[in-house]
């Protein structure tokens, strides 16, 4: 079972690479923003999976919740910025 979770971790890390390509390459800022959001959702899942691999889910749940909240704040800040500054 542990090996299964570890393989899921690896597959998710590879999937992050696809998002990262969009963040690095994306022609507009919105592509990059959406890529970053995707990366952070994957990061949340990765943290919970790390907790299952280490068998200490209770500790890792806290950080992943913090990640989720911060992701919302960051996305709101960027949206506010783009709204007030005009589109690039």
């Amino acid at each position: 079972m542990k090996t299964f979770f570890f393989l899921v971790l690896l597959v998710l890390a590879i999937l992050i690479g696809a998002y990262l390509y969009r963040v690095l390459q994306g022609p507009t800022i919105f592509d990059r923003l959406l890529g970053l959001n995707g990366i952070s959702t994957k990061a949340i899942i990765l943290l919970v999976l790390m907790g299952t691999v280490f068998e200490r889910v209770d500790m890792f749940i806290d950080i992943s919740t913090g990640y989720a909240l911060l992701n919302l704040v960051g996305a709101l800040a960027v949206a506010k910025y783009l709204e007030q500054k005009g589109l690039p």
Partner: protein
Amino acid sequence: MTFSFEIPLLLLLLVTAVGAVLVEDLISAILLLGSYSFFLALVWAWLGAVDVAFVEAVVGAGLATVLFLLTLFGTAPKVSRLRLPPPPMAALVSLPLLGLLLLYAANDLPQFGDPQSPPSTHISPTYLEQSYQDTHTPNVVTSILMDYRSLDTMIETVVIFTAGIACALLLRRHSS
């Protein structure tokens, strides 16, 4: 198995760091730095330092992104594109050499989690055994930060407080 998952995380870190330096738009650089902090927090969590990972996620990914955006909003002109000058030759030569030197020096460090390394045999047991008698604080990390290193922590707080006052004075809106 513990080590094999670090390598993709470190590769992602490297890619985001290089991208944040090379990208030609300030907002994109901020977003890339945000993802860099996410990966760094994942590395901390994988190494077992959950509290450090939490601080990295809060400060690096959340607060720093918002602060950078606020700074950009307060200062930059509408077009935030950069023209990157080519890096100086001395940096191109000396920085990889410095990196090689650091990698060479890192060979001598003890393995991660080695129970026979000098910190694990010499310093850590002393703190773990004696900190409660010395300070009467149940949490070892708190007793080290707040008792053994209390002067250091106090002056750090003074520095952060001074920086906060300076930022508040610089950024306050004039009411006129």
